[in-house]
């Protein structure tokens, strides 16, 4: 027996190698997360099919059907509500937004780092914002079609009268043209598949054409069934009678019934006085066209003096689009821009203004509607002239996507610019005056003081605007910001108070406040603030509603925050306090330096969750339409996402505990 039976020395080295390809990178991620086992694979495939289906359905809906006009034309309403009526208020909100954007740029540099990839994404975004409208603007816009003439169109139980006089809005230098809608009137088939803005009478025509095609199809099936010799006699009788009724009804085409084929039109464009003739033309062939370039922005009147009595004409108009009517109340302004005060109440005197805004773009005018024979002319309004038919991609691009990107770009580009500016300035600052470690970067100091002063700056900016007019996302944002900023110290104090076992009075007061507020829904607190408080003390009704809501929301969120913070305080091991005490720190120092900083870090996810729900709670979303709602959700999502992102950043920073457990 040799002794090496129990002792071995291994000298052969196994060289280090790279991990197998399939376990790293994209492939590794896919395998690890989506195709780990056959069960995972099946789930992934099912989910994939579902997601693709939903996406396709959503895209089809959003391109072909969704009504995005209400989002597009009400963007400023969604953002700032009735403040939009006051140009000075708009300026102030814009200024506030830009200041905040600058602040975000500064903070990005101070606490984080935007790499080449980040700036690439920003540049790409800017490029898209510039490129999309540039590409979509030259695309042809869809026509508007209206029925003119003297034969009413019957659809089901309603009768739609053709329009012979139509007041429309347009901008200086725009060219409008009017033709016969000859492609649509070529056949009932063509008439049944519109893709235009159409008025009610034309819509009735389209449905009639569709109904007739359906009847024709039915007739064909009946004929086929009747060929079958095995058909029982009683059924044959029923089918025969249905066939006779149908074929009698189908004798005349829709085009023939409403005499769309009978003759041409004589159209003219009048100025907004309804008298001055600007242009006229007789349209008899598909090539005839009335073309006119508008000399100034405002109202115009289009008239058809039908050539043949007892006929209709379907007119296709290009460059003429329906308008939305919108009204605001706003403070009446002196020539110097200051509000006119009511001498009795000392409140700004309000005036009401009415605007007409074109649905296809941002063009809007405040001029009154033209009068014809002493009455308002029939206006070309969106309510009566919806988009008819299924929208082709071209129309989606030119009516929705292009204008939307252009509109948001006007807001986003300056914001992106200021973010970049703030970042660049701070980068330069850190370059010129580099910190000596362990002192923090100079940009951090700047960012810290900037945010500390931000509430004051914002207050100065918006103080002069009228709180009665605050609305939209701006109001939500303001309420949330104030709610969070003000409720934070209150909530922390309540939490500390609730833990102060040595001060029973303070302790039970805090418990009472916290539990009372947490016990009622926010809506109740808001209700109390807005309705009940003024009853208690009439002087309170002088306080604007928005401010009262702010107070309510602040108290509400402070109570929830207090409980979150208390949870955090409880999670801190007693050894921390003992160590701090043993070092001679007094209770205030222990709280401010040791327990609170740790407690707050520990409850960041809960606090952010609370901020997000506060942000959502502060607005009662009136559902204007699914599209509007979707748009709002996206905005909400972005804000919530940013909050969550910031939370992760703070969690990652500074806490050794978090570092240790992070994989």
């Amino acid at each position, binding site marked *: 027996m040799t002794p090496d039976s129990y002792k071995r020395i291994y000298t052969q080295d196994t060289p280090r190698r790279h991990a197998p390809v399939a376990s790293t990178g994209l492939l590794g991620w896919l395998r690890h997360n989506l195709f780990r086992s056959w069960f995972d694979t099946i789930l992934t495939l099912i989910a994939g099919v579902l997601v693709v289906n939903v996406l396709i359905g959503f895209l089809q809906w959003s391109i072909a059907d969704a009504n995005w006009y209400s989002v597009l034309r009400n963007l400023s309403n969604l953002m700032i509500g009735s403040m939009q009526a006051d140009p000075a208020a708009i300026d102030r909100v814009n200024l506030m937004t830009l200041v905040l954007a600058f602040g975000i740029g500064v903070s990005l540099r101070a606490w984080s780092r935007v790499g080449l990839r980040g700036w690439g994404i920003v540049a790409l975004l800017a490029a898209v914002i510039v490129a999309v409208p540039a590409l979509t603007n030259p695309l042809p816009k869809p026509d508007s079609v209206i029925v003119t003439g003297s034969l009413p169109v019957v659809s089901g139980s309603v009768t739609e009268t053709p329009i012979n006089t139509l007041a429309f809005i347009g901008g200086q230098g725009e060219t409008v043209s009017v033709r016969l809608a000859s492609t649509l009137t070529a056949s009932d088939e063509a008439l049944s598949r519109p893709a235009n803005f159409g008025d009610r009478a034309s819509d009735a025509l389209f449905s009639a054409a569709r109904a007739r095609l359906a009847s024709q199809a039915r007739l064909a099936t009946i004929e086929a069934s009747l060929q079958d010799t095995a058909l029982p006699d009683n059924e044959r009788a029923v089918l025969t009678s249905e066939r006779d009724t149908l074929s009698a009804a189908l004798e005349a085409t829709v085009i023939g019934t409403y005499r769309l084929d009978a003759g041409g039109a004589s159209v003219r464009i009048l100025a907004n006085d309804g008298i001055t003739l600007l242009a006229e033309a007789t349209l008899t062939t598909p090539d005839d066209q009335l073309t006119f370039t508008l000399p100034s922005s405002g109202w115009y009147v289009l008239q058809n003096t039908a050539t043949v009595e007892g006929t209709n004409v379907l007119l296709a108009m290009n460059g003429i689009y329906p308008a939305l009517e919108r009204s605001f109340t706003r403070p009446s302004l002196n020539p110097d821009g200051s509000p006119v005060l009511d001498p009795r109440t000392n409140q700004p005197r309000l005036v009401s203004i009415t605007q007409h805004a074109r649905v296809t773009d941002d063009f809007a005018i405040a001029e009154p509607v033209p009068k014809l024979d002493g009455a308002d002319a029939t206006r070309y309004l969106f309510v009566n002239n919806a988009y008819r038919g299924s929208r082709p991609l071209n129309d989606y691009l030119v009516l929705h996507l292009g204008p939307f990107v252009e509109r948001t770009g006007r807001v986003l580009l300056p914001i992106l610019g200021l973010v970049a500016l703030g970042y660049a300035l701070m980068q330069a600052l850190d370059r010129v005056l580099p910190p000596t470690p362990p002192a923090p970067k100079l940009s951090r100091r700047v960012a810290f003081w900037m945010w500390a002063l931000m509430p004051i700056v914002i207050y100065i900016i918006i103080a002069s605007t009228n709180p009665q007019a605050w609305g939209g996302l701006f109001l939500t944002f303001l309420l949330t910001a104030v709610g969070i900023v003000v409720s934070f110290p209150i909530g922390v104090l309540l939490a500390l108070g609730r833990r102060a076992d040595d001060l029973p009075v303070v302790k039970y007061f805090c418990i009472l406040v916290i539990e009372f507020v947490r016990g009622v829904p926010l809506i109740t607190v808001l209700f109390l603030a807005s309705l009940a408080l003024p009853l208690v003390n009439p002087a309170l009704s002088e306080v604007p509603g928005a401010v009262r809501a702010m107070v309510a929301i602040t108290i509400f969120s402070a109570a929830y925050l207090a409980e979150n913070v208390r949870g955090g305080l409880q999670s801190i*091991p007693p*050894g921390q306090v003992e160590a701090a*005490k043993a*070092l*001679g720190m*007094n209770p205030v120092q222990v709280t401010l330096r040791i327990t609170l900083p*740790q407690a707050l870090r520990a409850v960041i996810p809960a606090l952010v969750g609370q901020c997000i729900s506060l942000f959502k709670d502060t607005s009662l979303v009136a559902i204007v339409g699914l599209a509007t709602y979707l748009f709002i959700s996206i905005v909400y999502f972005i804000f919530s996402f940013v909050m969550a992102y910031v939370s992760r950043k703070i969690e990652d920073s500074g806490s050794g*505990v978090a570092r240790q457990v992070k994989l």
Partner: protein
Amino acid sequence: MKSNNPQDPIIVCNKINKWYGDFHVLRDVSVEIQQREVVVVIGPSGSGKSTFIRCINRLEEHQEGDIIVDGIPLGNDIRNIAAIRSEIGMVFQQFNLFPHLTVLQNITLAPMQVRRQSRAEAERKAMELLERVRIPEQANKYPGQLSGGQQQRVAIARALAMEPKIMLFDEPTSALDPEMIKEVLEVMKDLARSGMTMICVTHEMGFAQEVADRILFFDQGRIVEEGDPHTFFNLEVEHHERTRAFLDQIL
């Protein structure tokens, strides 16, 4: 009244009694500790060792008896408590470093907050102490990034930064892996040699034999035996029955 006479004891405990609820945890504990003395407290688990040393800096409140530290009586007077705490440093079994602060900030916090030192001065002092506990390169790390032995050395530096006259150690090596125990004990031995007054609760008998001036043996809330380490660990001499039982187990 501060005593400057080096002959006077720096800590005097006279018949201290303490209860947790109705549980009598310290019973007539009396001891005098001289300046520059190193006292090691040993005894079975649950015998009241931690409670005893925590009473000395008032992390626990005793109900009867007197504790006088450096001439200051420890009572309910908040100013006295603060004064005594700033003269006593303490090191815990679980380190109790502040996880949200870097090593340097852990050490400089109390000197800046309590002693009102300037940041520059506190940091200079902190770096010196980190040299002394042999981890100057870890200054800007967070506690979570250090090994247990390194953390405990930071904790010692943190306590020393307040320039205490007395250091209390409550089982400073019990939560450490064997190879880290040594590095912490080395630092404690250095400290003992430099003349610091120390009270150490520890199970490191080698350390006790090497540096202790005196051993206090606790059992069921009482000091049942005390003596110099040589005699104490000598099984030949006469011992209290509890001491003998304890020594039989560990030696």
